C-alpha cells in the first residue's frame, strides 16, 4: 500500500506546478489551465485523506470542487472571450485598465 505521504507529495508537486504556471505564463488561457491543475492537486489530497479516514466525505468534497471548477471555467472563458474582443490579445499584461 502506498503511504499517504506519497499522495500528499504528488499533490504538492502538482499544486506548485500550477502556481508556477499562474505566475509565469503570458496567456490567459494557460493561466486558467494552471488553475485547473491546482484544483486537481487539491482533489487528490482530499480523496487520499478520505481514503485514510475510511469516509466518503473526501469524494463528496471532490464533487463540489469539480462543480466550482466548471463554474469557474465557464465564467473565466467568457471573460477571456470578452477581453479578446476588446484588445485582440490574450496577454494578461495588456489588460491594465478597468474601464476605457
Amino acid at each position, binding site marked *: 500500500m502506498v503511504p499517504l505521504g506519497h499522495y500528499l507529495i504528488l499533490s504538492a508537486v502538482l499544486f506548485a506546478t500550477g502556481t508556477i504556471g499562474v505566475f509565469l505564463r503570458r496567456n490567459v488561457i494557460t493561466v486558467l489551465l494552471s488553475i485547473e491543475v491546482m484544483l*486537481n492537486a487539491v482533489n487528490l489530497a482530499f480523496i487520499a485523506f478520505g*481514503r485514510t479516514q475510511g469516509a466518503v466525505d*473526501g469524494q463528496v468534497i471532490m464533487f463540489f470542487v469539480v462543480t466550482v471548477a466548471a463554474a469557474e471555467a465557464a465564467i473565466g472563458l467568457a471573460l477571456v472571450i470578452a477581453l479578446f474582443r476588446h484588445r485582440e490579445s490574450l496577454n494578461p499584461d495588456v489588460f491594465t485598465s478597468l474601464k476605457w
Partner: protein
Amino acid sequence: MLLFYLFGAIAAGASLLVVLGRNPMHSVLLLIVSFAALAGLYIGLDAPFAAVVQIIIYAGAIMVLFLFVVMLLNAHREDDAPGGAGRLAHGPLRLGAAVAVLLVAELAWALSRAARGGEAMLSTGPGADPAALQSVRSLGNVLFTEYSLAFEVTSILIIVAMVGAVVLARREA
C-alpha cells in the same frame, strides 16, 4: 504500488508540460492526459466514481469548453513581446516565482516529516472498508443528507455561472 508511481509520474510530467508549453492547444490536450492519470490514481484510492466523474466532467466537458475557446480565438501562439505594461510587471512576476519556489520547498519539508512520522499509522487507515468507500450508494447517502445544503447552494452557483457566462460573452449591441 507500481501503478501509483506510473500514474503519478504521468500526471506530474503532463502538468509540467501544460505549464511550460508554448501552444495552448497542446496544453489543453496534455491536461486531459494528466486528468486520465489522476483518474487512475483515484481508482487506486478506492474511489471509482470519482475517477469516472474526473473523466466525464473534467476531461469530457470542461476541457472541451477550453478547446472550443482556444479554437474560437484562433490564438495558437503566445505573445512573446509584451508592451510597456509587460516590462513594468517583471518585478512582481519574479517575486511570485520566488514565492512559488519557497512554497514547494516548504511543502516538501513538511510532507517529508509527515511521511516519516506517520507512515505506519496513515498507510491503510483505521477501520477503512473499501466496499463502503467504493459504493455509489453510500456516497449518495452522505451527499443528499449531510451535504444537502451545500448541494442546493451548488445548484444556485451553477445557475449564476450560466447566466453570468451568457451576459459576459454576449456581443454588445
